[in-house]
C-alpha cells in the first residue's frame, strides 16, 4: 500500500497519478481533503477523458505525477469562531 498523500497540501498545477494509471493536473483544490478538481493529462482506461476536468476522489490518488517533484502548500482554510 502506498503512503497516502495529504491532498490538502497540493497546489494547482501539481499532477497526480490515479489508481487506474491515469494522470491529472490539479486545477482547483477546495481544501476539504476529499476532492480535487483536475484535468486529465492521460487515461489509458478511457482516452476520451484526456483534457476533461473532473472531480478526483482522494482515495483514487496513488502518488504525485511525473511532472511534479515536490508538493506545494496551498490555500487558506475556513475560519472558525
Amino acid at each position: 500500500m502506498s503512503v497516502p498523500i495529504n491532498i490538502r497540501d497540493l497546489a494547482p498545477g501539481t499532477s497526480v497519478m490515479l489508481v487506474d494509471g491515469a494522470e491529472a493536473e490539479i486545477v482547483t483544490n477546495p481544501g476539504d481533503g476529499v476532492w480535487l478538481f483536475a484535468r486529465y493529462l492521460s487515461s489509458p482506461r478511457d482516452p476520451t477523458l484526456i483534457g476533461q476536468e473532473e472531480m478526483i476522489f482522494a482515495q483514487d490518488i496513488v502518488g504525485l505525477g511525473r511532472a511534479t517533484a515536490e508538493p506545494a502548500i496551498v490555500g487558506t482554510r475556513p475560519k472558525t469562531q
Partner: protein
Amino acid sequence: MAMNGRRGYSSSLVDLRVGEVSREIFVNEGIYAEEQERIFARAWLHVGHESQIPKPGDYFVSSMGEESVILCRDRTNRIHVFLNSCRHRGMKVCRYDEGSTTVFTCPYHGWSYGTDGRLVGVPYFREAYHSRLDKAKWGLVEVAQLANYKGSIWATWDPAAPPFTEYLGGFTRYLDLQLDGWDGREGQAEVLGGVQKWLVPCNWKFPAENFSGDTYHNISHRSVDLAGIGPSGAGRRDMGERDASRKLHVCIPDRGHQTIHYILPAGTAPPPAYLNAPVVAEYFRHCEEERRRLRGEEARLVGAPGEIFPNTALLSRQPRTMAVWHPRGPHQTECWRWFFVDREAPTEVRQFLRDYYIRYSGPAGMTEQDDMENWNYAHAASRGTIARRYPYNYDQGSGTAVSNYEYQGLSVPGEVIDLTEAQSSEQPMRNFYRRWAEFMEADDWSQLATWRSAERKAAE
C-alpha cells in the same frame, strides 16, 4: 393535559378571553414537537444578513428551528439556504461556523455539493454506482422560499407560505427602522463583528414574548440603570428621545408581530445622545438631521424592542441588534444575536458602538443577563406537576387597544395601546400567543392567511 376545541390550543391552552396561558405550552414535550412541524416548518424565519457572505463561495451556517442550514452565495452571486445534511446518510456537510469554499463535502462517505447545492462529487460514481445515480435528484435540500429584505435573509420551508413582505404586513415599517441607515437611506445596515451564540435553559417563547414588548419588567434592570452603562454614562441607554415621545404598544393582529414604539412630537428633533464620545455624538446628530430631511414626518418614529413571529427579535436603537431564539428542546433555547451598524459609519463610531453593544446585550451584556436569569428560573419553576396546573396571567390592559391610532398627524395602523400614562400592557403577548395558537390549530396557509379572506370580503 386538558384540551378543548379542535386541537385544543385556542381557548383552552391559550384563553385570551380571560387572559390566561397554560404553562404546558412552555414545558410539554408533545407540544414542543408539534411546534416544530406547525410553526417552524411553516413560518418565515430569519437566517442571516447578506453582509455576512459578501463574496461568491462565502457561507454562514445558521439554523431554522432545530435544523442546521447553510446560507451561502454561489459562483454566480446567487444567495441560497440549504439544509446542512448530506442526502446520502445525513451527516452535516459543513461543520464550520462561516468561511468560503468551492464545495461542501460530506466527511462521512465523501458526497460533495457545489455552492449552488448541486451534487457534484460521488466517490466511485462509475465503479460502484455504474454511473446510474441521478445526481440532479440528490442535491442539497433547499428552502421552499427565500427573501432578501434590505440585506436581511429570511426563508421558509413551506412553498404555500405567503411572500415575505405579505407575511410581515404592516410590520415592514418597524423592520425598516432596523435595516435602513440612521440617516434615512434604505438598507444601509451591515453586521458588526461576529454573531453571539449562547444557551439558556428556558423555552424559546420566554425570550420571544419578552422582546414582543414587555415593558413591565424594567424593575429587573434596575441595577444596570444604577451602574450607568449607557452611551452617555447614565442609565442603560439615552432616554431623551423616549422621554419626549408618546410610548406605544403596536400589534399587527393577523400576523403575530408586535413592538414597543415611540413617536416624537411633530417638529421635535431628538435630544443629544452618545455624549461620552464627541465624534460619535456628532455623527448621530448629523444622521438624525439627514433622516428628518429624507423621511419627513416618518423620521419621528423611534424603534424599540419588537418581535417578528415566531422567533426573531428586533431592537433598532441602543443597542441596534437582532436576535433569533432557536428552539433546542422544550427546556433549552440557543440565542443568536447580530449587531448592526451603518456600512459607512466611521471607525471610531463602530468601535464605540461595539463596546456599548456587548456591554448591554449578549451572554456578557449586563442587561441581557438580567433577562436570562428571569427566563431561566421562570421556566424551571414551571415544570413541576403542581406548577403546571396554574396558568400564567396575561390580562394586563385587556380591552384597551385601539385601531386607527394617530398622534399629531402620524397614523399607526394595527392594534395600539398608548402607554405614555398606562406604562405597561400585555397586548403584545396576547397578540403573540393568539398567533401561536392559530399556527398550532391551522392545517395549512389557506387557514393561516386570515387577512386574505378579509380582503376578499372587502372587495366583494
